[in-house]
Structures are given as structure tokens and as C-alpha cells.
């Protein structure tokens, strides 16, 4: 191609952003929480991550081969799905549960819609909900953290959210005194692999915020809404409703708010839409947690708001520069 110049439409310079860069940044941001889970659950956790990563990548590559499309497993997006999926499973999950979840996430959640960018629902949450409904026993068999090299055996236990739900149903009141918020924050909270440590999650989230790959709108409104709403109920009746700090720290709220409710593909694009999305997630989570049958509502809430995203987007198209609504015309300087 000597003497022939390249012609493209402008702009002729580009920021350093690219899809792999975005995706691997998210992977990087997940690593602290991954590390904590491996620390606490040892080889079992490591195994789960390995199975989900291998299955997800293989499933994505296979789908793309079948559809005769370019294989894009190296762009990092499937890696995020794999890691988040493992994080959404209980540490005691058998290998086949991980495999079924991975296949569901990649095939049903993503590839049937044409792959990255086109799926209406968060693939990880689709998988989590499918598993939760299909295999309720395996999906709610929680074990206590058993730190690596500590010699402690994993014993069966309930998640804090599950515990208070049962307690409320059986005794009509709840007692939060046994919970130590320090454990929640650092990583002794029972629950899914990724829910262990709020600090580790926040560390990653701060990195993403700093890099600009997520914005504050969804996580802040989401967690804020949960805090305020649970606060109102707690003030109304502290014996049957847990306090807002408990609700924010317990369960998958932090993981969901920063890493799944911020999934670009399945959430609104405009800041206004994001705020509505966060509000909706918050309200639904509180409703499900406090009044619903499931102790945890994060996954369902985000999925439901994913479904509402096209409608939100439709009504939150940014106002274009210089556009005045007919009823405002004349008022402008």
C-alpha cells in the first residue's frame, strides 16, 4: 500500500480507552474481593473460580464459533461474567452448579442476544436467579468462612439476612446484637463468595470510579435509597426491622450496587436515567428483603430494573443543547 494514504472520518485521535481496557479494569477491581474469598474459603473458592472461568470462556468461544462470528473471548468481558458468577454462588456450591450457572450466564444471558452489548439482562444475575429457582437447596447452603491455613472446618450456617428473616417469622422480633459490623466490613460475613468483604469490594469500586468506568449515580442512589428506606422502617419499629447499617453491609448490596447495577450494557446511559435506576433498585431491594419471601433482593431488583432500562432510557433522553420546551420559550434570555 505504498503511496496510498489512509482515509477515515474524523476525529483522527482517540482516547486510550478500549473495550479490553474497560473490561480488564473491572477484572482488576474485582481482584481484592476475589483474594479475600480465596483467603477465607481456600481451595474450594479457587476451584469455583477456575471452573467458572474455564466454562464461561469455553461456552463463549463455542457460541461464537457456531454463529460464525469472530471469537472475542480475549476482550475480558466474559472473564468478568465468570468471576462475578462465582462470587454470586455459595462457597459450598458443587462443581456442576458452577458449570450450569456459567452456561446459563454466557449462553442464555448473553450470546443468544448476539453477545456483548446486546443483552438486556445482566448475564450473571440471570444465572444466579435461574440457579436460585432451580436449585434452591444448593443455592442456600451457606457455610461459615474458614480462613486459609487456620485449620477451622467449614460449618453450615445461615446468612445474616436469612437469619433475621427466619427469626422474624418464628419469634416475631429480631436481635442484631450478635452481629459484629467489623466482621461484615472486613470479611467474616456469611454468604456468597463475593459478599465476604465490603472493604475489598469498595477498594475495587473506588478504582473504577477513579478510572471513570463507573459513575457514582447508580451505586450512591441505590445504597442511599436502601439506607433511607430501611432507616424509616427501623425507626418505625426497631424490633421487627433491622437497622439501615445492617442492611447496607449485609448481603450482596455492595457487590450488586458497585459491580452489577453498574454494568454498562444493561443500565441506562444518561445520568438522570441512572439515578432512576438506582432508586428503583433500592426500593425493590427493600421491598423484597423486608416483605418478600426471599431474604435477599439484590439480584431480583437489578434484573427487574434491567427490564425497565429501555423504558427509562426512552424517557430520559438528555435535553439537547439550546432546546427549549415550547412552554419555556420566551423565558430564555
Amino acid at each position, binding site marked *: 500500500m505504498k503511496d496510498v494514504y489512509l*482515509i477515515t472520518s474524523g476525529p483522527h485521535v482517540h482516547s486510550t480507552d478500549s473495550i479490553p481496557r474497560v473490561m480488564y479494569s473491572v477484572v482488576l477491581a474485582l481482584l481484592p474481593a476475589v483474594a479475600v474469598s480465596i483467603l477465607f474459603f481456600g481451595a474450594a473458592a479457587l476451584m469455583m473460580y477456575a471452573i467458572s472461568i474455564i466454562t464461561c470462556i469455553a461456552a463463549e468461544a463455542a457460541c461464537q464459533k457456531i454463529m460464525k462470528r469472530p471469537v472475542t473471548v480475549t476482550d475480558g468481558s466474559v472473564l468478568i461474567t465468570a468471576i462475578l458468577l462465582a462470587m454470586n454462588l455459595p462457597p459450598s456450591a458443587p462443581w456442576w452448579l458452577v458449570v450450569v450457572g456459567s452456561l446459563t450466564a454466557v449462553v442464555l444471558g448473553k450470546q443468544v442476544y448476539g453477545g456483548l452489548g446486546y443483552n438486556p439482562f445482566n448475564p450473571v444475575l440471570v444465572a444466579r436467579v435461574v440457579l436460585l429457582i432451580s436449585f434452591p437447596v444448593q443455592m442456600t447452603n451457606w457455610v461459615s468462612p474458614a480462613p486459609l491455613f487456620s485449620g477451622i472446618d467449614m460449618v453450615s450456617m445461615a446468612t445474616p439476612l436469612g437469619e433475621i428473616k427466619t427469626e422474624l417469622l418464628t419469634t416475631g422480633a429480631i436481635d442484631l446484637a450478635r452481629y459484629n459490623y467489623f466482621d461484615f466490613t472486613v470479611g467474616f460475613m456469611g454468604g456468597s463468595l463475593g459478599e465476604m468483604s465490603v472493604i475489598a469490594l469498595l477498594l475495587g469500586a473506588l478504582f473504577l470510579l477513579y478510572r471513570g468506568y463507573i459513575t457514582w449515580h447508580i451505586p450512591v442512589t441505590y445504597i442511599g435509597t436502601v439506607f433511607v428506606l430501611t432507616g424509616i422502617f427501623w425507626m418505625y419499629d426497631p424490633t421487627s426491622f433491622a437497622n439501615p447499617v445492617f442492611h447496607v453491609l449485609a448481603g450482596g448490596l455492595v457487590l450488586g450496587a458497585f459491580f452489577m447495577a453498574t454494568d454498562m450494557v444493561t443500565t441506562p446511559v444518561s445520568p438522570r436515567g441512572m439515578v432512576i435506576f438506582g432508586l428503583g433498585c433500592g426500593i425493590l431491594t427493600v421491598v423484597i428483603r423486608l416483605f418478600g419471601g426471599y431474604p435477599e433482593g439484590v439480584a431480583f431488583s437489578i434484573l427487574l430494573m434491567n427490564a425497565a432500562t429501555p423504558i427509562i432510557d426512552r424517557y430520559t433522553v438528555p435535553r439537547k443543547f439550546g432546546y427549549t420546551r415550547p412552554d419555556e420559550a420566551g423565558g430564555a434570555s
Partner: protein
Amino acid sequence: MLSAILTLAGLGFLAALGLAVASRVFYVKMDPRVATIADILPGANCGACGYGGCGAFAQAIVSGEGKIEACSAIDEEGAHAIADIMGIMYTESEKEWAVVLCRHTDGGVANTFDYVGISDCRAANLVGGGPKACPSACIGLGTCAAVCPFGAITMSADGLPIIDPNRCTACGVCVAECPKNVIVLAPVSSAVSVHCSSEDKGAAVKKVCSTGCIGCGACVRVCPFEAMTMENNLAAVNYSKCRVCGLCVSVCPTNAIRDHRDELKVRKIAVIGDDCNGCTLCARACPVDAIAGNPKEQHTVDPARCIGCGICADQCKRGAVSMITVDNTEDEASGPATVVGGGGR
């Protein structure tokens, strides 16, 4: 039992009464023929008729404003069915197909730059008129194939649209969307086209393309029917005069004029019947000396030489020469052409 009968009857009566009143109040005139006609129409919504889709066209036909002929995609059976519904006449229009008047792949048209961007001719045309060295050349990004509602266009590996005459309905969508205007509709029966759209001077064309029209005028001179015209250095076929003899094809020095008779299965040859009295008029008129025979004896046509121009048929005072359609596509090399159908001229 009685109460049951009375209840149902009473209810039925009440509902009927309510609906009867409502149908008065909310009466809207609807012509059932619209739906029937819409069902018959091809449903491709190609817009060739000039209306916003088949439904709107059906409405237009019923209102008497739309003509069935405007639909290029409908088959004859459907057209007649609509004509019957409406009680009007349907006159079949000359069948047309879309022809790409560019062969940049054969002509070796180079790229003046590397284009990277939206893979659509209309978008590429906005960037310096597309990368092809010939400003009139097909850009080759396949916009026509993408917009064709009938899947009649495929792109060759090196970027030239190939039109399937069996699928093309001459709806004209590709013609309208091609930014270089290299696609035109041409009658299927006149299967000769000048495959070049450049109005540049011959030297300029030669520089960028080996199969472009250089405006030499050889075709104009050879045409026995004055069907070739030369305007702005570009030859064009006047389809109302063209008799599809293919002489222009043979004289064109750059092979810009091409013959699609076999592809379209419209190749004709002359056959001389028993009525021939050997007057020799045909033999003398034949531009390619394909007719032989002694005077006063029945003449014969050499099918290998006959170009199907039909001059002999015009000359014959006894109507002894008929033009028949032949199919050469099967096996061109061996044996005489198979006769697929008759038809005089």
C-alpha cells in the same frame, strides 16, 4: 332450565342491543377489499409503488388512486386476482431487472486511498467520494445488497454486486440507494448494457479502468437500428430501438458493452420455415451472413452465426422467418442450442 334459557336469551338480547347502538354511534366506513388486496400483495414493503408499504398501496388501489402496475414485485397471478377484485384491467408491464453499470473488478480499478470506516457505500461516498480511482465506479461495500428487499443481490468477493435475475423484481430500491448511481433498471428482453457510468474523457477512463467506456463510438457506428447513443463520452442503449443483436458487444474495444441474453434466457435465433420461396432478401439483409441457400430454394440459418437481430424476419415478405428463444446456458460447448420456446417478431 327455563331460567337458564331466559337468562342467556336476555343477556344475548341486551348485548346485541348495546352493540347495535354502539355500531351506529361509532360507525366507521371500512372497505373489506383493502385487507384482501393487502394479503395478495407481496408484503415486502419495498416502496417501489411510491406508497408507504403494501398496506398503504392496497388502500390506494381500493380508492382508485393506485395502479396495480406500480407494484413491480407482484406475480401475474396476483395482479390478475387484484384486477378481478377491483373489476379493472391489468396490463402487464415490460419485465425489467436491475443492472450494475460498472465492472471495476474486471477493469482493475485501483484504490486511491485506504478507506476505513462505516461499511456502507453511502457513508464512504461522503469521504472523498469513496476510495475507487474512477469517480463513477461502484464503491463495492454492498449497500445495494443490504437494502434489497428480495435478497436478489449478492456481493462478489472482490466487491461487485451480482444480481440474480430470477429474484430481482425491479423495485428500484437499490437504484435509489446507490450513491454512485451505477444501478439502473433495464428491460429483460433487451439484454445488452453498457457497463460503465463514467462521463470522463476516454483517456481519463483508460487511465483508471481497462473496461470502461472510452467514448470511441464504434458501437454507435455498428448498430443497425440506431439504438446506440453517445452522450458525454458515454455510450448508452436506447432500449426502445434495441433489437438485441449484440453487434455492439462484439465491436466494443474495452468490452464495456456486455450481453446478458444467456443469463436472462432471452437469446433468440432465426428459423426459416417451409413458406420460404428462396427470394434471398433475408440472406442479403443479414448483417452476419448467417443465412445461406440457393435462390428459389428454402434458405437455412446457421444457428452458430445468427445473432438474433431479426432483420431477416422484417425483410421476409412471406412471414417465413420466425424468431425463437433458445437456452444456451446449459451446455454451451456441445451440440446445437436447445429450443425452449417460440415467438415471432
